[in-house]
């Protein structure tokens, strides 16, 4: 029998804890067993708990910990694909495939997510404007639903395939994924950073030539105001080719062995990351960054996953945690982006990381977050006064221009806005009625937002 224990769970932002029975499963039959015998408060899968909000929590019910299902990594070099267990982390996967000359098609800002969790959120990376999100690179996955086990491809069952991408675990438990990999010659990136002194400049630069780079992102200092409102560092890059490498890297072009350099202390005083300390950080980051790497070569970990260098950095926000807020608005909503940065700057809402990037084409997933336009992501300490109202106002602004917030990061959206932001919700409701008519799949996110 699978090992079960009662646990308090939160997302990465450490807010809104709830208690559930966590069951570690070690075989596919145990997954099916749990789905068949879930109690009335249902069941949800959990990966590495890196979604910020309550998507991988199920108060009073069962949470399936699928990490122990993680033993398959099977690369098909001829077809550039990998068959991988859903419980495997991107970290493990990259350590395996990078030395073989492959990169993952899409990576979020941390490697410490599972393949299952990444598909459930349909994650995007710095390359969305050219490559789309994760589901765009998935050939097939194995899904355990309350109605049985299916192997799903975009052709075999398009509704279920795209409906699972971004559904935050509500279509079933993914146990295996076949992913197309990106062949690379080296494990380094050729990067270019530039300082932009205000928001209009950075947005104009991104519109001009983002298309010339596979990866692009801008770090905005949300505390800057007046004429420097939106000052930022635009950072872009491409996989380096072997013959571009500096001589010292040529011997081991595919070397990949990132280490976490430091760990955050298990406790931190509340208020350590306050407006003053964040302002200092932002100032330093703005001044030092371009000089550090104005152009040159960076490792995968420093370019894509800088935060993974500090283990459990979320603890730095103290016991009340923090929030992540991410929205996307259409291309023509330039003014809404500006307005949102003004609102944040005006509220002096200290944001440690504000990341602006452009999304490319949308995929057919009814709950998939990325859509063409501008996306802004922020971390904000939960202690900022007036935060609830500020974020409600931002939601309204975003919804008004046809934008939406990211469910993997949400922890506080007003439920009434969900159907406005995700107009394809009725399609998702139909899918849910088909694969889980009895409502076995349940999560705190689902209860809070009234997801179908």
């Amino acid at each position, binding site marked *: 029998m699978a090992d079960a224990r009662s646990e308090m769970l939160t997302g990465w*932002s450490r*807010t809104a804890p709830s208690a559930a029975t966590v069951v570690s499963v070690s075989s596919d039959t145990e997954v099916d067993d749990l789905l068949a015998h879930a109690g009335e408060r249902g069941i949800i899968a959990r990966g590495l708990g890196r979604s910020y909000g309550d998507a991988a929590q199920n108060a009073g019910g069962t949470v399936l910990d699928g990490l122990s299902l993680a033993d398959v990594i099977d690369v098909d070099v001829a077809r550039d694909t990998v068959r991988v267990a859903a419980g495997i982390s991107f970290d493990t996967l990259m350590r395996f495939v990078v030395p073989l000359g492959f990169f993952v098609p899409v990576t979020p800002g941390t490697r410490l997510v599972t393949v299952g969790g990444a598909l459930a959120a349909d994650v995007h990376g710095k390359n969305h404007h050219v490559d789309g999100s994760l589901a765009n690179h998935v050939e097939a996955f194995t899904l355990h639903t309350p109605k049985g086990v299916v192997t799903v491809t975009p052709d075999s069952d398009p509704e279920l395939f795209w409906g699972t991408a971004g559904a935050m675990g509500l279509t079933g438990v993914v146990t295996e994924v076949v992913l197309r990999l990106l062949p690379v010659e080296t494990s380094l990136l050729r990067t270019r950073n530039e300082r932009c002194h205000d928001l209009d400049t950075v947005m104009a630069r991104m519109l001009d030539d983002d298309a010339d780079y596979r990866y692009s992102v801008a770090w905005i200092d949300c505390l800057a105001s007046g004429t420097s409102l939106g000052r930022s560092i635009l950072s872009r890059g491409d996989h380096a080719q072997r013959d571009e490498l500096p001589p010292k890297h040529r011997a081991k072009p595919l070397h990949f062995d990132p280490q976490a350099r430091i760990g955050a202390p298990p406790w931190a005083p509340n208020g350590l990351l306050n407006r003053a300390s964040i302002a200092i950080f932002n100032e330093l980051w703005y001044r030092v960054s371009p000089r550090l790497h104005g152009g040159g070569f960076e490792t995968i970990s420093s370019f894509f996953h800088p935060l993974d260098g500090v283990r459990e950095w979320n603890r730095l926000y103290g016991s*009340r945690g923090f929030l992540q807020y991410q929205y996307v608005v259409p291309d023509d909503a330039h003014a809404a982006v500006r307005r949102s940065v003004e609102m944040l700057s005006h509220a002096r809402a200290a944001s440690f990381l504000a990341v602006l990037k452009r999304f490319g084409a949308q995929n057919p997933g009814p709950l998939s977050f990325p859509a063409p336009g501008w996306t802004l992501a922020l971390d904000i300490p939960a202690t900022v006064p007036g935060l609830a109202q500020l974020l409600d106002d931002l939601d309204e602004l975003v919804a008004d221009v046809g934008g939406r917030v990211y469910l993997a990061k949400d922890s506080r959206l007003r439920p009434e806005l969900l159907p406005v932001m995700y107009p394809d919700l009725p399609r998702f409701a139909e899918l849910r009625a088909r694969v889980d008519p009895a409502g076995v799949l349940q999560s705190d996110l689902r209860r809070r937002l009234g997801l179908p």
Partner: protein
Amino acid sequence: MQDSLGSVQSVLVLGAGSDIAHATLRALVKRRARTIVLAAREPASLVPLAEELRALGADKVETIAFDARDTEHHAALIDDVFGRVGDIDLALLAFGVLGDQAQAERDPDAAVDIARVNYLGSVSVGVPLAQKMRAQGHGAIVAMSSVAGERARRSNFVYGSSKAGMDAFFQGLGDSLVGSGVKVMIVRPGFVHTKMTEGMDPAPLSTTADAVAVAIVHGLERGSETVWVPPTLRYVMSALRHVPRPIFRKLPI
């Protein structure tokens, strides 16, 4: 569900007729609360409140009969509410009687009635509530205690002792619920200007129902275990607790 900033979506209020309940509900509905169950001795008297909450944006407001004295019916009532409404994110226990101290000193029935409502009623409601919330894996119980329960005074020790009992009960209940996802928050206001205290001489550091509501919302946001209104009472009371009895009983409080 309670969200990451402490806002709740469904609320059960026992003793919904009180001014404090009214002010708190208004504040909660302005945030996220959409499902509200109002319980009081005379549910008909709650209709205007229900209307007001609907106008503020609540989409499901129910009124039910609840008498804190009918302890034998409490478990069934709680069962029924959870069965019909589903998850309750927040249960606010706002019932209580002040009673008449002079009468209570003469008439044992009057004294017992105060204890029955304030203490027994809380216990008989608190136990099934905790059980239901433990099963749902989340939730908050907010218990309206009183500064009077911190140290019973000569001038209203019957009321004070009943609040002391209920306060101690909820402290213990909160401890028993650690790790269950359920939190208990005890609110200790000083003298509140309400219907209940109309015509009485306000004590120093008196407050209003609106201030109590703000403190409750703020406490939920912070995940507090104890909330004093006004906050300075915490320090005043911690000093008063250590005043020797011969002096304490003579203090003009």
